[in-house]
């Protein structure tokens, strides 16, 4: 028998040796193994031991950089990474319960390929797949594809009309991308495969649907080559810092990751997303809003502070992030998460500052603490990621149409 999903949802964001740029120099880091399957499977099985809802895996179409807009040519930080969807697929058979959510860049990729890749990740994980949608305005990444050039876009350009126009265009494209991906997931009805020996028909082709998507940036015919995945619709998520991406989350995602720095700010962000969600006609649907936090966790608050300081010394600069940075004990983090939850956040995606240290601190320190407080699961309640998140398996949009017009 399954109980209701955990009242508080918890994910970790995996990125190389950890989110602090000097994380790879820590004693628990395995910097020489970042490109091996064993490294990733160890991280994800650790997350699963902590009964976390899911892991996300960062990715990008260029080398990592300390600059938001261009390569930095640095050699003192981790550079290079493996394709996140392939890492996800490689670890899926080694785990049984935890959701696996690779990053997918919408800007230079084909929604047809992404749709079948994530559907297949859902098959190889038997219903635990999701994706994190990302856009990129980086000119040098566009040059890796050579299909279009993007205008210069610096940190100061967010507020300019040209900058806003570029961002809107990239997010509109991402919205189209995910719309195509979702339509393709539905392009086979669940019972399309009939294997009718009497008539020799493997499928009932009336249950396959052309998606006939036509948008500003591309058109896609369909149907998918891959049948509808086990979850029907794998979980779609995106990180959002401002109104344009909030709108994408509100319209297209199942989870938005946001970065408010206190409960008041969180309340405002959640309100903005809920308003957009209602405007998009999705008010009745479950849309999670997760808070993102970078965490330095130790049982002794001074140890956490010292560790952060040590890493900052190694990096030669104070650590900053788009997300709030928490430094302290699991109990203090639990207090903070519960406080933020009162503002309407339904879960959290924690970014371990040092994967080898802060991930086990989450699974072995924070998780038991949350459990003691009665706000986190004691066992996995469901076999799918949607189930863990309290999302129902959605009806197929095309099957619904067929029924209503019958």
């Amino acid at each position: 028998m399954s109980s209701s999903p955990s009242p508080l949802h918890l994910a970790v964001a995996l990125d190389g040796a950890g989110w602090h740029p000097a994380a790879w120099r820590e004693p628990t880091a395995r910097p020489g193994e970042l490109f091996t399957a064993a490294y990733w499977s160890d991280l994800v099985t650790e997350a699963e031991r902590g009964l976390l809802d899911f892991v996300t895996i960062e990715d990008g179409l260029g080398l990592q950089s300390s600059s938001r807009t261009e390569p930095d040519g640095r050699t003192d930080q981790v550079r290079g990474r493996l394709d996140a969807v392939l890492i996800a697929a490689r670890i899926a058979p080694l785990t049984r319960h935890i959701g696996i959510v690779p990053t997918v860049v919408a800007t230079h990729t084909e929604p047809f390929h992404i749709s079948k890749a994530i559907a297949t990740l859902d098959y190889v994980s038997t219903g635990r797949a999701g994706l994190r949608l990302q856009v990129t305005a980086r000119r040098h990444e566009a040059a890796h594809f050579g299909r279009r050039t993007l205008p210069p876009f610096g940190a100061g350009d967010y507020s300019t009309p040209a900058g806003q126009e570029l961002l809107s265009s990239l997010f509109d494209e991402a919205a189209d991308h995910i719309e195509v991906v979702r339509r393709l997931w539905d392009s086979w009805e669940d019972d399309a495969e009939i294997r009718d020996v009497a008539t020799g028909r493997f499928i009932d082709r009336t249950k396959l649907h052309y998606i006939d998507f036509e948008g500003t940036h591309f058109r896609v015919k369909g149907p998918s080559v891959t049948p509808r995945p086990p979850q029907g619709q794998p979980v779609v998520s995106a990180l959002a810092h401002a109104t344009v991406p909030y709108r994408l989350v509100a319209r297209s995602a199942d989870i938005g990751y946001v970065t408010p720095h206190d409960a008041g700010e969180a309340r405002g962000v959640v309100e903005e997303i809920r308003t957009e969600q209602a405007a998009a006609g999705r008010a009745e649907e479950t849309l999670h809003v997760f808070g993102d936090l970078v965490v330095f966790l130790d049982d002794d608050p001074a140890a956490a502070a010292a560790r952060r300081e040590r890493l900052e010394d190694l990096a030669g600069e104070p650590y900053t992030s788009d997300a709030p940075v928490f430094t302290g004990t699991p109990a203090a983090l639990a207090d903070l998460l519960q406080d933020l939850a009162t503002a309407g956040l339904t879960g959290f995606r924690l970014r371990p500052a040092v994967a080898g240290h802060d991930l086990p601190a989450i699974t072995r320190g924070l998780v038991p603490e949350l459990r003691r407080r009665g706000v986190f699961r004691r066992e996995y309640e469901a076999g799918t990621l949607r189930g863990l998140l309290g999302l129902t398996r959605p009806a197929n949009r095309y099957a619904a149409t067929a029924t209503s017009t019958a």
Partner: protein
Amino acid sequence: MSKPLKQIHLAAHFPGVNNTTVWSDPKAGSHIEFSSFAHFARTSERAKFDFLFLAEGLRLREQGGEIYDLDVVGRPDTFTVLAALAAVTEHLGLTGTINSTFNEPYEVARQFASLDHLSGGRAAWNVVTSWDAFTGENFRRGGFLPQDERYSRAKEFLSTTNELFDSWHGDEIVADRRTGTFLSDAKAGAFVHKGQHFDIEGQFNVPRSPQGRPVIFQAGDSDEGREFAASSADAIFSRYATLQEGRAFYTDVKSRLARYGRRPDQLLILPAATFVLGDTDAEAEEQAREVRRLQVSGATAIKHLEFVWNRDLSGYDPDGPLPDIDPDPGEHTVARGRAQVRMYRDPLATAREWRERAAANKWSIRDLVIETGNRQAFVGSPATVATTINEFVQTDAADGIILAPHITPGGLDEFTDRVIPLLQERGVYRTEYEGATLRDHLGLDHPDDARGEREAS
């Protein structure tokens, strides 16, 4: 002096969406669920096969304007399945078809380099190229190519991905905690490619993988395809599984290598073939006939004839004679999304030849399709099949075979249990994997060795 015995290369083709697969057999399982792929891969590894091969499709097949429903329809994503299979196998090579028309080099290179890292050096790429607008309708590129440009794009695609793979040399990651040096070279991965099809530059973001580059397969059979393979491939996936045709193809392709400065052993010839086993040869023959009838129903026979005729032939009796009308030689519109259609370059001549063969042998439409489509190269008792395969390889009709069983996923089990031991007894097939990577299994040079030789010379 007699030639030393060649070691046979064997591999497995996961049965896909053509009519090889007998999905109606009660033993047939899912062709989508991962458990099927895992079973198939584990059996392949138990058999010490070089690799598992997975085909790709980017648009569902259509015939007469409707999605084709008589064969298996649907398949999972190639890269995703191969990466997952790396988790349930240790040695087996993981070969996937990836199209060079509906992808971009940067993305494909990072996917293959990632697969090679995540599998410990077992990745291989069957480079194919399409040019049809039909498939292009699923891609934002909207794209397709004039037929005469497809090899030019494929060649440039492959050379571009090689530039990306080679943009890391393998010694850049030093990860020295003490000095804080992660990379020895800030320019790791730097590349510039300016060509007819691709104009790209920047830095590749996957470090050099265990094999340096994935093993490259090629499958085209035209003159251009053979040249492409001779110049750029490590193995060719051929379709000649009879002794005579196989030897002719083998001789032709191997003779093309010298002009690219390559040795004959640098390109393996591996035809795909099906097999049927029985306790006796007679029993296997009987089973093979039955399998062929299951693979080619009356309806399937008519549909296959339409590939050539390019007309609606639904009014014809599959058990009757071939149509006396000629094929419609115009643009192919009846059957779309099928590689087979492109094999019939001269439909009028094919129709003429088929009519003659059918008349001479008193074949019905269904008989004709069964006979012309038959790829059951290896039929017999385990001893007969072992002997035939061995002869096939020892007499240079091929360097090995890619086995395509007709049952998913258990179609290799019997072959593994009953034929493999016989090949091992004869000393023509490995009893253990000797190396770690697919290049090791196939006896191919590591690309860095070649680079070393070139630089030294």
